[in-house]
C-alpha cells in the first residue's frame, strides 16, 4: 500500500495472472479496486499458505482475495514490521526468513533464522526478531537492520509459541514436548522461570497490560492463564462443546482484545473459536468457522477477527461486536499464519 | 302429469317471470337415473311443496338448482337468469336451507350470519341491520352471540332460515327443513315461512316427504323416482288424481303408501 499525497491510499495491482474463479474475483476487484481502494481505508489481511508456498492478500472491506504472492518453502509464521511496510515470513523449509515489501509485493531480502523457523515475535523496538527453531530446541535472536544473528538461546524441546511482554522485557516461549512455558529475560537471554502447563503448549500471548500470559495446550485441551509477575497459573480454562468429542478440542491460537475484556481461542479440529470473558475467565460462546482453525488476528480497530482454517482452506471473518461469523473466504492450501494491517 | 293453470288463492300473479322455472331437467349418477325430464315453475308469492319419498330425487334437484353441480340437460332459470349461463345473477336471488345442517357449530349465531353476508358481498353495516331484522322475526335475537353448538335443533334450523334470508333473496329453497324436530318446532317453522311467503311475496319451494305439511292453498309438485307425477294447485292435483285428500292423491299417483 502506498500512501500518496493528502494521505489517500492507492493500491497498485501486481498484475499477476490468476486462474479460474479467483481470476474473476481479481478482475472484478480490479474494476472496483481503483475506486474502492480510496474508500477501503487500509485494512488488508495477509495469510501464509503452508502447502501452496504463497501469501494470500485479502482486502479487509470487500473481504475478497486481491493477490496471491509466491514465496519460499513452507511459509508459516508471519509478522508485520513495526512501520507496517514489510511482512516477515518464516519460510520453514527454506530455513530462512523472507521479507516481503507490501507495496510491491515482492521479496526484497532474506534473513538468517536458524534452522526450521516456525514462529517469531518482534521486539517493540522494531529491530529484534525472536525466532523459535522447532527442530533445534532454540530461540534465535536476529538484528533486523544488520541482518545478523545476535544470540541463540537454548530452550525446551520443540519450541513454538512466542509471547513478548508489552515492554519487551520478558519473552515467553512454550516447549511442545516438555509442556513448559519458559520465561526468558530479553536483556540477559537467561531463562528466569519455567511454568508447567498442560500437554503440548502451542501459543503464548500476553494481555495488553502485561499482567497475564495465556498459554494454549493443544492436546491437554485447555488454556492456562499465568500471572506474569508471580509466574503462577491462576486459571485453567476448559472447553466443552455439545456433540463434539473432547479429543477434537485442541486450542491453538489465542488473541485478547486490547481492553482485556474478551479473549478468542482457536480450537483446531473442533472447527470453532471460543469466545471467553477474559475478566472472569468464563467461556461465553462458540463460533463455528472452517475446519481445523489454527491462528487468529484482529483488524487494527478490533472490529473483526480473522481465522485461518487449515483443512477447509479458508479464512473466516468474525464480527467481534455481534460475535457472529460473517463470511469464509477461500485462500490457498493449509492457511497457517495471519496478520492484519 | 297435468299442466296446471297457475291459480293463486291469495296474491295475484306478478308479471309472468317465474321465480323458479325448471324445464326438462334430467340427471344421472353413473348408471343410476336420478331425475327424468323434470319440469315445473314457482311464482313469487307461491308456497310450493316438492312432495316425494326419500330417494325421489328432491335433494338432487336442489343441488342442481343451487349449482352444486351442473345440469347437463334442460334449463333452470331463477327470475329469468339461467343458472348455467348467469350463475352469479341467479344465485344472488336464492336463499337455501339444505337438508344437511350447514351451519358452523363452533361459531356464534351472528358470526355465522355475518360470514354468509360477506359471501354475498354485503357490507358489515348492511349485514348488522339485516341480522337484527331476521333474528328478530324468528325470536332469536337474544341468542345472537351464543355458540350454535349450544342451540337446540329447532333453534339451529331457525338460524339457518334467518341466514338464508340475510341477503334478501326473493326465492327461498328449503330441503326437508323440519326433519328431526318436534311437532311444535315444526309447526313454528312452517308458519313462519308461510307468513314470509304471504307478507313479503317470497317464492318458496319446500321439499318434504311429510304429506301433512301440505297446505290447502299451496302449489304442489309430486316427485316420484325422479319423475314429476303431478304439478299444480293442491285442489287441482287432488281432483286430477281422482282422490279426496292429498294423501289419497299421492298414494294413487305413486302407487305406494306414503306416510
Amino acid at each position, binding site marked *: 500500500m502506498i500512501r500518496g499525497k493528502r494521505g489517500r491510499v492507492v493500491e497498485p495491482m501486481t498484475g499477476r495472472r490468476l486462474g479460474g474463479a479467483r481470476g474473476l474475483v481479481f478482475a472484478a476487484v480490479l474494476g472496483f479496486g481503483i475506486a474502492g481502494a480510496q474508500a477501503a481505508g487500509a485494512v488488508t489481511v495477509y495469510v501464509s499458505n503452508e502447502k501452496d508456498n504463497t501469501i494470500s492478500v485479502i482486502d479487509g472491506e470487500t473481504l475478497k482475495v486481491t493477490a496471491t504472492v509466491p514465496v519460499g518453502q513452507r511459509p508459516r509464521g508471519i509478522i508485520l514490521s513495526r512501520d507496517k511496510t514489510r511482512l516477515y515470513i518464516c519460510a520453514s523449509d527454506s530455513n530462512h526468513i523472507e521479507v516481503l515489501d507490501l507495496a510491491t509485493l515482492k521479496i526484497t531480502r532474506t534473513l538468517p533464522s536458524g534452522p526450521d523457523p516456525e514462529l517469531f515475535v518482534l521486539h517493540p523496538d522494531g529491530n529484534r526478531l525472536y525466532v523459535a527453531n522447532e527442530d533445534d530446541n532454540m530461540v534465535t535472536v536476529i538484528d533486523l537492520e544488520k541482518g545478523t544473528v545476535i544470540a541463540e538461546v537454548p530452550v525446551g524441546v520443540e519450541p513454538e509459541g512466542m509471547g513478548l511482554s508489552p515492554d519487551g522485557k520478558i519473552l515467553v516461549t512454550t516447549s511442545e514436548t516438555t509442556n513448559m512455558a519458559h520465561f526468558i529475560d530479553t536483556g540477559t537471554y537467561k531463562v528466569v522461570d519455567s511454568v508447567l502447563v498442560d500437554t503440548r503448549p502451542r501459543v503464548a500471548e500476553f494481555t495488553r497490560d502485561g499482567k497475564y500470559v495465556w498459554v494454549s495446550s493443544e492436546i491437554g485441551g485447555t488454556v492456562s492463564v499465568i500471572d506474569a509477575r508471580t509466574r503462577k497459573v491462576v486459571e485453567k480454562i476448559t472447553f466443552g*462443546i*455439545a*456433540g*463434539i468429542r473432547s479429543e477434537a478440542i485442541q486450542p491453538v491460537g489465542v488473541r485478547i482484545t486490547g481492553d482485556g475484556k474478551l479473549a478468542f481461542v482457536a480450537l483446531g479440529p473442533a*472447527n470453532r473459536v471460543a469466545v471467553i470473558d477474559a475478566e472472569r475467565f468464563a467461556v461465553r460462546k462458540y463460533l*463455528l*468457522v*472452517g*475446519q481445523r482453525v489454527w491462528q487468529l488476528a484482529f483488524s487494527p480497530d478490533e472490529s473483526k477477527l480473522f481465522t485461518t482454517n487449515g483443512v*477447509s482452506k479458508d479464512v*473466516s*471473518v468474525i464480527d467481534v461486536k455481534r460475535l457472529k*461469523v*460473517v*463470511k*469464509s473466504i477461500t485462500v490457498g492450501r493449509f492457511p497457517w499464519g495471519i496478520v492484519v494491517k | 302429469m297435468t299442466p296446471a293453470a297457475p291459480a293463486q288463492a291469495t296474491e295475484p300473479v306478478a308479471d309472468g317471470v317465474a321465480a323458479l322455472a325448471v324445464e326438462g331437467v334430467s340427471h344421472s*349418477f*353413473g348408471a343410476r337415473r336420478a331425475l327424468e325430464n323434470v319440469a315445473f315453475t314457482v311464482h313469487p308469492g307461491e308456497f310450493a311443496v316438492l312432495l316425494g319419498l*326419500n*330417494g325421489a330425487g*328432491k*335433494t*338432487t334437484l336442489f*343441488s342442481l338448482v*343451487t*349449482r*352444486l*353441480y*351442473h345440469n347437463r340437460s334442460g334449463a333452470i332459470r331463477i327470475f329469468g337468469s339461467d343458472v348455467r349461463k348467469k*350463475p*352469479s*345473477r*341467479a*344465485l*344472488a336471488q*336464492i336463499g*337455501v336451507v*339444505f*337438508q*344437511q*345442517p*350447514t*351451519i*358452523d357449530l*363452533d*361459531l356464534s349465531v351472528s*358470526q355465522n350470519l*355475518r*360470514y*354468509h*353476508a*360477506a*359471501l*354475498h*358481498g*354485503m*357490507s*358489515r353495516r348492511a349485514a348488522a341491520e339485516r341480522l337484527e331484522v331476521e333474528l328478530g322475526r324468528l325470536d332469536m335475537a337474544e341468542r345472537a352471540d351464543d355458540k350454535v353448538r349450544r342451540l337446540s335443533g329447532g333453534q339451529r334450523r331457525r338460524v339457518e332460515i334467518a341466514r338464508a334470508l340475510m341477503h334478501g333473496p326473493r326465492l327461498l329453497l328449503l*330441503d*326437508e327443513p323440519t326433519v328431526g324436530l318436534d311437532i311444535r318446532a315444526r309447526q313454528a317453522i312452517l308458519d313462519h315461512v308461510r307468513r314470509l311467503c304471504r307478507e313479503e311475496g317470497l317464492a318458496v319451494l319446500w321439499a318434504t316427504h311429510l304429506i301433512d305439511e301440505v297446505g290447502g292453498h299451496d302449489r304442489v309438485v309430486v316427485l316420484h323416482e325422479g319423475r314429476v307425477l303431478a304439478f299444480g294447485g293442491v285442489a287441482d292435483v287432488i281432483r286430477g288424481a281422482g282422490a279426496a285428500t292429498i294423501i289419497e292423491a299421492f298414494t294413487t299417483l305413486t302407487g305406494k303408501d306414503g306416510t
Partner: protein
Amino acid sequence: MTAVHYLRCLRGIVVREALRFLHQRGRFIAALVRPLVWLFIFAAGFRSVLGVSIIPPYETYVLYEVYITPGLIGMIQLFNGMQSSLSMVYDREMGSMKTLLVSPLPRWYLLTCKLLAGVAVSILQVYAFLIVAAFWEIDAPVWGYVSLLPALVLSGLMLGALGMLLSSVIKQLENFAGVMNFVIFPMFFASSTLYPLWKIKESSLLLYNICAFNPFTHAVEMIRFALYGQVNTFSSLYVLASLALFLGLAIYGYDPGRGLIARRGEPAG
C-alpha cells in the same frame, strides 16, 4: 358484483378461517411444537459441520440448526396446507362447504379466497416459530424476516393449492390419514430440508432427481434464499408453476360441471 363485493367476500372468508384457527388452540400449539422438536431435538444430534462446502446463500459455515430452519418453515406450511385440506373435506362432510359454494361469486374466486385465508394463518405460525428460534440464536438478518414474506405467500399458496386438490379427490374423512402419509412424508424427506442436494447426489442419483423434481424442495430453497434477502429465481419459478398446476386442478376438481362432487354423488334424498 363489483370489486367491493369481492373484497368483502375475501374478508369474510379470512375472518372465518381466523376464528376457526383461534378456537382450535391445540392446533396452534401443535403447529409450533412440531418444528421446534425437529429443531432442538433432531438437529441436536447432527452437530457437525455440513460437509466441506459453503452452501449459498450462506457465506460461511453454518450449524445444522440454521440449515434446517427453512425446511422447517416449509414443514409448517406443508402441514398447514394439509390441515386446510382436512378442513375442506370435513366441511364437505359436515355441509359447510355448501354455504361457500352457493355464493354468487365465481367459484374460482371463492376457492382462491379460501386458499389465501389458509396462507395467512400459516404465515402467522411461521413467524411465531421464527420468534422462538431467534431466542436460541437461530436467526437471520433483520431485513431477511421482511424479504421472507413474499416467499412465504408463494410457497403457502402452492402447498395450500396442493391441499385443496387433495381434498377434492379424497372421498371421506377416514381416508385422509392414508393419503397424507403418501404426501407429507415423501415430500418432506425427499427434499433439501434435512440434507443439501449435493450430498444426496453423492449417494444416489435417482434420489437426487426425485428431490430436484419435488416442488417442496424448491419451496424450501426459495425460502432459504429469501431469508437472506436473496432471490433464487429457478426455485421461485418452479414454485409458481407448481402453484398454477395445483390450483388449476383444484378448481377443476370443484367445478360443478366436470365436478368430482357430481360423480361421487350425494346421500340419496
